[in-house]
């Protein structure tokens, strides 16, 4: 006997994903799956989501050609999918808004969220303000310090930001605390998870609400370039912008790349590259590639970008990588900073540190002979100004 879910809850040949949740959360997760399925079939929900994505979020986001940067690197063409231009400044709002609408439809007026870079927290706080829901965001104390502008934004939107002191004070601990808070309040609260991870149905839910990125981008590039690119590339923390961009291109003959955080060194604890040193394990409700020690304890991670600083890769993206459908690369902290500098100077766009990891790979792709590249610019860099200033001597 299985748990009784309807949607597929495992991914790929190694059956990643699943629902490794404490019993208290099993029924709420079953209810969430049912609500999600019925919302997708409800024309009123879909119409409201579409209208909000258009008028509140600002979709469709542009696909911006970056000819100066392309020429500088020796690419024929480079296109940027501009999630940085969404309201609140990152792709996170696509999912946060859709889940907030879902929560309201379920009669849940309290929202819990975790955040790393603060983009998911800000997006959730904004969606809650717009829909009249109360919002509590859990955030590690290290991340609160390095993403301070986002903490202020959340508070301005009326959200309560709960500092999480445990461990490294980063995204992993924030998810721990959000899961605990949800277990205590699951009778009235909905947990808006911000990446394509966690127990089923979250990975599927988040991916579904993020594929709007790739669907738009695919149509846009066909129209603007007259054909598909050779490479589609995005950064990967948990994997939500990566899946959102890459999944609609899965049927195409092209190179799909996810870029992990190489941090400041190759040893465990110095990076967040789950494909280098990650082993199959269970964390936060799903089975996936996990950075861990010999005892099955989660390893420390490091990255200049809070949004990629997480020890597990979302199960669906991990499965696509293990099954050879998506390639994985890594970019170090320093390379990400150079990637950001390239874009700032050639095109006048300030990328989030997360997105800069994808930008960092562009010189390599050019050297490998790629002609046309589509890059997911998952967010804007305003939140990272202090890091850019201190690390680039601006």
């Amino acid at each position, binding site marked *: *006997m*299985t*748990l009784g879910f309807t949607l597929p809850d495992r991914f790929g040949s190694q059956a990643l994903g*699943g*629902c*490794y*949740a*404490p*019993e*208290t*959360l*099993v*029924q*709420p997760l079953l209810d969430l799956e049912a609500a999600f399925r019925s919302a997708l079939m409800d024309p009123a929900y879909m119409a409201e989501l579409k209208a909000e994505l258009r008028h509140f979020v600002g979709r469709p986001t542009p696909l911006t050609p970056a000819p100066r940067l392309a020429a500088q690197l020796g690419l024929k063409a480079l296109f940027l999918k501009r999630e940085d231009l969404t309201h609140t400044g990152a792709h996170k709002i696509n999912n946060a808004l859709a889940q907030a609408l879902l929560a309201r439809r379920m009669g849940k007026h309290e929202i819990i969220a975790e955040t790393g870079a603060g983009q998911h927290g800000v997006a959730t706080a904004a969606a809650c303000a717009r829909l009249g829901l109360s919002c509590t965001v859990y955030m590690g104390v290290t991340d609160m310090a390095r993403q301070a502008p986002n903490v202020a934004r959340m508070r301005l939107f009326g959200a309560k930001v709960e500092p999480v002191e*445990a*461990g490294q004070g980063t995204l*992993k601990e924030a998810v*721990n605390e959000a*899961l*605990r808070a949800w*277990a*205590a*309040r*699951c*009778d009235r609260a909905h947990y808006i998870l911000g990446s394509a991870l966690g127990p089923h149905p979250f990975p599927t839910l988040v991916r579904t609400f993020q594929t709007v990125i790739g669907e738009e981008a695919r149509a846009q590039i066909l129209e603007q370039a007259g054909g598909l690119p050779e490479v589609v590339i995005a950064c990967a923390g948990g994997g939500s912008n990566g899946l959102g961009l890459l999944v609609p291109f899965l049927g195409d003959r092209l190179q799909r790349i996810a870029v992990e955080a190489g941090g400041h060194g190759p040893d465990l604890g110095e990076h967040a590259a789950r494909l280098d040193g990650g*082993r*199959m*394990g*269970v*964390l*936060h*409700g799903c089975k996936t590639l*996990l950075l*861990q020690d*010999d*005892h*099955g*304890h*989660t390893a420390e991670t490091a990255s200049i970008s809070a949004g990629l600083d997480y020890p597990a890769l979302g199960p669906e993206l991990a499965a696509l990588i293990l099954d050879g459908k998506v390639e994985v690369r890594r970019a170090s902290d320093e390379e990400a900073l150079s990637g950001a500098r390239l874009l700032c100077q050639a095109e006048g766009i300030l990328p989030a540190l997360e997105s800069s990891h994808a930008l960092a790979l562009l010189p390599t792709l050019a050297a490998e002979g790629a002609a046309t590249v589509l890059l997911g610019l998952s967010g804007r860099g305003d939140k990272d100004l202090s890091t850019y200033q201190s690390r680039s001597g601006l």
Partner: protein
Amino acid sequence: MNPLLPFLMAGDPSLEALPGLLSAAKALGLEAVELGLPHSDPIADGPVLQAAAHRAIQRGATPLRVLQSLAGITDSPDVVLFTYLNPLLQLGAAELKRLLAPTPVRALLVVDLPFGEEPAFEAELRAAGYPMVPLLAPTTTLDRARQLLAERPDPGEEAPFAQRFAYVVARLGVTGTGQGLDLKPVAARVADLLSLTSRPLAVGFGLSDPRSLTAVRRLGATPVIGSALVQELAKGLGLREALAARLVDDL
């Protein structure tokens, strides 16, 4: 009826203290104890057990060392190993069985393993004499409870308490010392479950004073005492003193 199911965190106050605590539990006539395997990300635990796990890990209480320190111990009640899944998965079923064989562990309570998610792993451990304790939460519908009790079945009346009991989670949320736990819903819940099953029930999460322990016993169930006990033991008290300190006046 087993009067009490105490929870101990392995490695807190120390692994060296563990044999003495187990022996004291046996001397008190308890049939079983829950033993927590300290984990890096205890998502179902409140601040007290999080801190205890953290201290234990700092002192080197790895899963391997905990199980090795239990090897050969016989002066102990049956041990129910309370743990998260990942450390067990990393050991693998074969190695885990080998490590458990010389220990007093008789059952596993894996907080984040719903039935059906690791069927082969669970079946192999059950066959070796390590069944998984069914957990019944406030959110578990009676239909689902019926299903859970069938999937992780009662091995029968000859089997020890540790292998028979179902764990009733007393409240939403995580482990911890509960201020004024409302026992009315717990009473209704236990009555409903007793109509489904004849196996022993233990009730835990948030029981931290003699009044709630007594109330649970009156319902015909065994109270679990965790965070409140771990707090006392961390001060260096022995088991009997820790229980007497603020918890149990009628053992």
